[in-house]
């Protein structure tokens, strides 16, 4: 085969392959996807709206979030519409630097709470260089993403309150986890709570509406959840974002509580990436190791 024929054949195969890949990857649009990425010991989530907009909520430690985004996002889409940093700790923040390095990020949602670490300084510098819009989240904010057959994808910010933010600005904050952003993602009759690392005492009054899915706070630690929270939310599935760790996460008591309530437990360390897919009326869960 001469060079010319080989080049033509290769080009033809590339065009055919490109077409097939686009057709294949377009199929995933039209539904809401909540992907709880296996990022090790930390939180990292990807929300894909029915219209194909992406929101990354936390990035986990290291750079593993990049693999998850690559697997779940169409290859041609190199833009992430919004990144949410729930609170500035390494197990939620580090991977977001990888996200900023690999994608164009249009908007960043955070509390504005600072952390005196080299990692946070690097994040601060990277955000400045990215030129994304920065929005300070506070309870009561409603983010409307897009709609599917009259159903609106809505993200409610439940925590922190503006009063608390003002207080922390004046008096400082002893425990960064307390500033963690809490979100409720809703589409039609489906909803899910994304709870960051907020301690259960602060979380309990916020979760006043039942939802099918809850991300258990703080990797299933003893401060993460209690019976009142599970009763109020009455979830069908609970996702625990946890990797190999020396803290004993998730706590046995938490697992027992969820089991006693008949909640399906999905853990990143055991199940890999956990993906919840919904059209607003029903949902399914896919796991991928």
């Amino acid at each position: 085969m001469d060079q010319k024929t080989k080049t033509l054949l290769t080009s033809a195969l590339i065009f055919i392959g490109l077409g097939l890949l686009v057709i294949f990857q377009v199929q995933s649009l039209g539904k809401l996807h909540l992907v709880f990425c296996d990022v090790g010991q930390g939180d990292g989530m990807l929300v894909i709206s029915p219209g194909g907009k992406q929101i990354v909520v936390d990035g986990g430690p290291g750079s593993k979030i990049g693999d998850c985004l690559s697997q779940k996002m169409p290859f041609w889409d190199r833009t992430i519409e919004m990144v949410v940093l729930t609170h500035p700790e390494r197990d939620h923040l580090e991977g977001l630097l990888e996200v900023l390095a690999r994608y164009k990020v249009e908007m960043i949602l955070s509390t504005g709470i600072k952390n005196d670490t080299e990692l946070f300084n690097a994040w601060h510098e990277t955000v400045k260089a990215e030129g994304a819009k920065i929005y300070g989240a506070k309870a009561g904010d409603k983010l409307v993403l897009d709609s599917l057959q009259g159903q609106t994808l809505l993200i409610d910010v439940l925590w922190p309150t503006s009063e608390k933010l003002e207080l922390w600005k004046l008096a400082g904050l002893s425990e960064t986890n307390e500033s963690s952003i809490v979100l409720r993602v809703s589409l039609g009759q489906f909803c899910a709570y994304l709870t960051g690392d907020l301690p259960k005492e602060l979380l309990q009054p916020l979760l006043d509406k039942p939802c099918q899915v809850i991300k258990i706070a703080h990797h299933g630690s003893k401060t993460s959840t209690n019976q009142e929270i599970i009763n109020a939310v009455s979830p069908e599935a609970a996702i625990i974002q946890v990797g190999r760790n020396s803290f004993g996460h998730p706590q046995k008591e938490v697992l027992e509580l969820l089991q006693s309530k008949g909640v399906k437990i999905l853990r990143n360390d055991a199940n890999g990436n956990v993906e919840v897919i919904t059209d607003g009326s029903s949902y399914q869960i896919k796991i991928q190791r």
Partner: protein
Amino acid sequence: MKILGYSLAIFILGLSVALRISWQRPQILPKNQPIKIIATLKNEPKIYEISQVLEIGDSRIFTDLYPRYRVGDRLSIEGEVDSDGKMYQPVIQKLDYQEGFNSYFSALREKISGNLMQLLPVDEATLVVGTVLGIDNIGLEFRQALIKTGTIHVVVVSGQNLMIVAGVFLSLVKYIGRRKSLMLALIASFSYALLTGFEPPVLRATLMVLASTLAIYFGRETLPIWNLVLAAFLILFIWPKAFFEISFQLTFAATLGIMTLGQYLAKISNFKLLSKDNFSSKKQISNLETATRSAQAHGTLDTLGTLFINNAAIAVSAYVFTAPIILYYFGRVSILSPIVNVLVIEAVFPIMILGFIVAFLSLIFIPLAQVFAYFAYVPAFYFVKIVKLFAQVPMEQMSLGKGNLVIVISFYILLLVLIFVWTRKSKDPNF
């Protein structure tokens, strides 16, 4: 003889550069005691999933992913180096940044690598960055898949990649003539070695691959095995320690395998596909090239068959010759390797060519680079999928002979005897 003269001139040029590099002796850090050192980063940090690794003197320093350090950074480092030459979680303070050719060049590589990572998904970007720039940022899972399928040599700069770069220019022989195509191939190979960091292993592979590539393209004139042995001896003269390095041994074995067993396999396999005239011709070109060219006169199926056979000949011969070395060091060798290599070998060429185009365009106009990145994505996606698919095959790697020199020597003696017998049988004047 002219060709031999040119190649020798280039070897000497390359080796003089290599000599200069080899003069730089690494600083030896004290072990098992608290130390504070001030040093300038000369090598690019290696970036892994959860850490970055800095090379200072003879030691490797493991630190967090951020802040990122770069070549030219003058750092104050406090910690303790263990007996294995590793320092974990030191206190690092950045003092200064020293500009120079090295730091400028590294910044350019970093810029291109950053651009490629923005344009492609993770695994495909890793593949393109690895083949174009020789930067090894492979994630743990993908690395394991590459090792299991015996394809890691594609992602880290290896003889095969260098052969592709040289081959592109050597294939211009019928348009611009031998001398020009040869010169362009040599310039391109050394530019590629430069772009990929000019590390001694890369330079060594460049020299050896040039020796073999020239031989494959120009046939008996350049005395193929003599060229390779000459290159190997010169390399060992400059870097005697290379004799004990796996990368050198593997490159030498693979190249020798392709030039001996590979040529022989290609010839006997193509025999049925080719007309007798082609073999009786006195053309001064190699069997692989003869097979490719003569197949032009045949149907598409025959043509594809020839291509497949040639690829299989290269993959199998490299595999057979490197297997004893891999067994000696790692105690196991991938059975899947030749199959996966045959399946992916044709994708490597477009990945590299489109990768170079994307890398270049990304420095000028990102939207255009993005268009080419979509094209590069297709062969890269195919490569990644094949590797991951075969990595899932629940096939155990063949496991025996770790550290057993007798097995290695017996294997090579058997191999050489078999080749000698076969070639005597076929009375092939090329051997």
